[in-house]
């Protein structure tokens, strides 16, 4: 069975630093992989490579068995990227931001898609307000709407919980949970162990550009995993 998303020996160097160092994994349609790791482990670089924003120095990304070539921009229709930076224009309203992106993606029936996305993410009430005047929770939900507008097969989430209060954080978790529809593959990078584990089908720990652990999230207890994670990091540092 062909994997939905496959990474083969990805390497990305910044001068002498190997930010991503030989990462290989594959995910089926509908799977959610959560990547944990300390700051500077290369998680964001990995997501940028997967999204096609950055080219790997070595290795390949495959989507449904086809090599994704970063310079061929049509591939980008298949990926949605959300980071802790919203990638929205503060002075445009939510509708204007989404309308701008719908035009960039050349979406048909964009008006309906925009309002459907806003309804799904419960941001209709702030549709005509400038994004910069909204709370962090609303901004992040609009950012998620932007990433889902073109209905991508792969959703990449880079620390989406940063700056969110408990309520907004739970709301976002529920929204991500709803996205697990069996079709969409999600890669989530987070420092939030509780929510990361709860959502995950598979988990990975990335340190110094490498996956030092990958496995299923079935039966993994939060406290045990936190201890395991800290022990692994300490082992590597010593």
């Amino acid at each position, binding site marked *: 069975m062909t994997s939905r998303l496959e990474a083969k020996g990805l390497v990305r160097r910044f001068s002498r630093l190997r930010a991503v160092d030989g990462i290989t994994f594959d995910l089926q349609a509908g799977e959610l992989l959560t990547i944990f790791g300390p700051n500077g482990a290369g998680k964001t670089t990995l997501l940028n490579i997967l999204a096609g924003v950055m080219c790997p120095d070595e290795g390949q990304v495959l989507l449904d068995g086809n090599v994704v070539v970063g310079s061929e921009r*049509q591939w980008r229709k298949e990926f949605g990227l959300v980071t802790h930076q919203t990638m929205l224009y*503060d002075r445009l309203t939510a509708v204007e931001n989404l309308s701008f992106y719908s035009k*960039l993606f050349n979406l048909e029936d964009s008006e309906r898609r925009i309002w459907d996305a806003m309804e799904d993410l419960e941001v209709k009430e702030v549709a005509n307000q400038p994004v910069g005047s909204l709370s962090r929770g609303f901004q992040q939900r609009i950012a998620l709407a932007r990433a889902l507008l073109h209905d991508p097969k792969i959703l990449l989430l880079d620390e989406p919980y940063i700056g969110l209060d408990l309520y907004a954080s739970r709301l976002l978790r529920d929204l991500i949970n709803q996205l697990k529809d069996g079709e969409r593959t999600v890669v989530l990078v987070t420092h939030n162990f509780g929510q990361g584990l709860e959502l995950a089908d598979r988990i990975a720990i990335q340190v110094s550009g490498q996956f030092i652990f990958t496995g299923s999230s079935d039966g993994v207890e939060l406290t045990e995993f936190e201890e395991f994670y800290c022990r692994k990091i300490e082992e590597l540092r010593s």
Partner: protein
Amino acid sequence: MQEDRGTQVLNYIALVWTVARKDLVLELRTLERLIAMGAFAVLIGVLFQFSIDTSLIRVQTIAPSLIWMTTVFAGILGLGRTYIIENENKALAGVLQSPVALDVIYLGKVVSNFILLLSVVTLILIVFSLFFNLSFPIEIKGWLSLAGVFSLGVLCFVSIMTLLSAVAVNNTMGESIIPVLVFPLLVPVMIHAVTATNRIFANRPFVEIEGNLRMLVAMVLIFLMLGASLFRFAIED
């Protein structure tokens, strides 16, 4: 097949306008760059008015040079900040994540910068005509030539600036690198733009301006093509 090609061209133009329109809407909501460039143009006009001894110098002969220099300095001030708005929330990363070709983004920004700078040039011409008693062309043809020279000259400048401000935004030297890079590239543009403007204000026949206009058209094409193809290296990681 022919229709497909036509549709592709229309889609391309629509995408360029989408980027340009977004930039113009953002600018009109704050007027940050327009106010900075406009205020600069007026103040420079006032300074020139007081600093030039009109009993020794016939101002009309140097006015075209002053107009173009004011345009260039105002442009560096305003257009150097083209990508500042894109750094807010890493918005440009979102645009780069879309399937839109990079030259569309570049050309969209060229269009919005062109409209902004052309509106500042209009203000500069009004200010300088008040202070220096410029003799504008009498015939329609002269006005068209004037519009042509300023449109082409500004388009050359804007196509260079849009590329270099992308370089500056990812450079540790920031905006201070722009004048160092832009002035050498502007020399041929200024030679033809100032010469043509001088001749238009002197009401010289069109044949004397035609050559300059042709050169400006050639430079517009060269700078736009260079900008569109080099933009990738300025913006992508």
